[in-house]
């Protein structure tokens, strides 16, 4: 077998590779060839002596890449590394067939593995990856997952409706559904003025109160979004419960304000960041549903493979959700306290919501 692909075939190495091999072949190489001339009888020793220089050259190149990244190679080096890698892979294959030298097999296996890792390393830079994601990857994923996003929206609306109806049935439900911090005036006993004072609180101590509450709400929502995505793998059920509960809470909250006649003011207060923030929860839930769908209905694939396939766009949606949460935090931190007019609050909130939708609908589409 080694006879058929001896010098004639190896002589066809491109000149570049040969140059690199010669450059990197050191004293060890010459020692190897000298020793081999004595052990001519051993076919596998001859095989090794003939190729050792190339292996050493490849090793030197791979070490260089491991230290300084692929950019540390010039064009000729990069080209010869690819050639030498393929030759080393062939050598490994041949050595497995003809050699019983354990040390040689271990060396070749490690060398090929190292070069494989160097050759097939991720090629993208962070900037490239980010640009591609924002321009085409993310909107395409959202378009691919739109039924799941609708399901997420539906879950939230269902919870909202249920919470509202529960509140209409008995105001006592409010304290069951809504977690209340100490000193939070908003409850079944609250008056219209108290509710309004929170919605339009401008500065001073109320700002501190509110920012703490906003931070709580944000971290709460971020958590819900993360879990809604991550737990989707468990057959969608945890996602449903989480988002439904979030809707329930919101429903009772809104119902209380509508009941006191401050519905529109609350709508403005919520809209400025809530459109983006609840949007994030919906997107995260949709991503979770997509993963769960792969688990529930794998079709002809194995469940693991189906889940991995659905996870591809779902991860992109989850990142969008994280971005939206970040945007919501900024809106919440600055916008809500600075902008006190309901109509402007509404315009900002829904305007940004429309921007998100436009991005998803048209981003990365070929005209």
């Amino acid at each position, binding site marked *: 077998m080694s006879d058929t692909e001896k010098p004639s075939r190896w002589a066809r190495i491109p000149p570049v590779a040969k140059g690199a091999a010669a450059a990197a072949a050191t004293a060890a190489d010459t020692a190897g060839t000298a020793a081999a001339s004595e052990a001519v009888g*051993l076919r596998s020793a001859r095989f090794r002596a003939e190729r050792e220089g190339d292996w050493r050259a490849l090793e030197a190149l791979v070490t260089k890449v491991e230290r300084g*990244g692929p950019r540390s190679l010039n064009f000729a080096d990069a080209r010869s590394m690819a050639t030498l890698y393929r030759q080393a892979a062939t050598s*490994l294959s041949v050595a497995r067939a003809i050699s019983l030298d354990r040390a040689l097999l271990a060396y070749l296996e490690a060398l090929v593995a190292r070069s494989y890792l160097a050759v*097939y390393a991720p090629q993208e830079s962070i900037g490239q990856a980010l640009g591609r994601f924002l321009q085409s990857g993310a909107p395409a994923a959202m378009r691919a997952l739109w039924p799941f996003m609708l399901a997420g929206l539906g879950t939230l609306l269902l919870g909202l409706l249920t919470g509202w109806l529960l509140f209409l049935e008995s105001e006592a439900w409010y304290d069951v559904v809504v977690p209340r911090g100490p000193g939070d005036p908003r409850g079944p006993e609250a008056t219209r003025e108290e509710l309004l004072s929170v919605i339009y609180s401008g500065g001073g101590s109320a700002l501190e109160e509110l*920012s703490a509450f906003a931070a709580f709400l944000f*971290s709460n929502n971020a958590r819900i979004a993360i879990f809604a995505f991550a737990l989707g793998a468990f057959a969608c059920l945890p996602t449903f419960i989480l988002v439904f509960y979030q809707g329930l809470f919101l429903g009772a909250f809104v119902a209380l304000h509508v009941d006191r006649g401050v519905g529109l003011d609350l709508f403005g207060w919520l809209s400025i960041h809530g459109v983006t923030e609840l949007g994030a929860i919906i997107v995260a839930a949709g991503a979770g549903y997509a993963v769960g769908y792969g688990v529930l209905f794998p079709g002809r694939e194995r469940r693991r493979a189906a889940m991995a396939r659905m996870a591809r766009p779902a*991860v992109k949606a989850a990142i969008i959700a994280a971005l939206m949460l*970040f945007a919501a935090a900024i809106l919440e931190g600055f916008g809500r306290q600075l902008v006190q007019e309901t109509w402007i609050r509404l315009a900002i909130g829904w305007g940004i919501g429309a921007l998100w939708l436009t991005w998803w609908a048209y981003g990365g589409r070929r005209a």
Partner: protein
Amino acid sequence: MSREGWWTRRRSRARARRQEARAAPRTVHQLVPPEGVPIGLNIASLGARFAAQFVDLLLTGLAGVALIIVLAALVDAPWSLVSALGALILFFIRTPYYVATELLWAGRTPGKRMMRLRVISADGRSLATYAIVLRNLMKEAEVFVPGTLLLIVGASDPISGSIMLGWIILVLAIPLFNRERQRLGDIIAQTVVVEEPEALLMPELAATRAARFTFQPHHLDHYGAYELQTLERVLRAAEQAGDTRHRARQDGTLAVIVQKIRARIDFSDPVTDADHQAFLQDFYAAQRQYLEARQLMGEKRADKHHRSAASPTRVEAGDAAER
């Protein structure tokens, strides 16, 4: 496929997996790169992974704490807000840190670099950006968010605290129950964490000098590849033996081996004490040449039991013909 019950399919799949596991050692991940030559990489131990994780946590934690201190000094805000912002900052430092470093250094965070570990794609293809993002987002959901929650509400709310604790324990136990030591994020992203292979080319044992002992085919018919490679290991160790005490112990080992081999292969020429290593080297070279030639002709001899193992009639016939 549809004719079989799911139970039958499951069992045959399990059998296939068991066979596969027998073929490859448990700690090696086999993959087939596009070149088509399968290679094996050692799966990283959980200890090394925890150590790498610890380094990374330390780095991100320090950066986060420094940022929070700067923030607290600059902004006159209540502690509750600062702590909430701190959790937020940690979240927005941590995941990007893992993603960016693994993308930049081909699957290695600084911690993994230190422990010589690397994330690879399980199927032998290039590690995709999305896989890196996915496995690190899952890390957030697996450990970090429940962990933070546990710290925040663990004391005040024992029920949700114990749920979080149970979740974390469950997630940390998942790598113990699969061969590739994958955590949940690895399974979903189809990645494996492996040790960096280290390539060290040892000198050729069979070619150091002209042979002093000669062996006949009937001397070489007793052993297989396993014994040959064990002998190789002993010889390499003997060559590297340094100080005199170590040396003496190695000489003792060699003497026993020489005695055993001579008895088994029926080698009658005298071998002096000084010649033990030379004898073994020559025997190694001759035995390897013999076995490799056999292997080229399609007869692999795994070990000294090769006679009883594979098609005894043919081997016996061959032996008879040689004699």
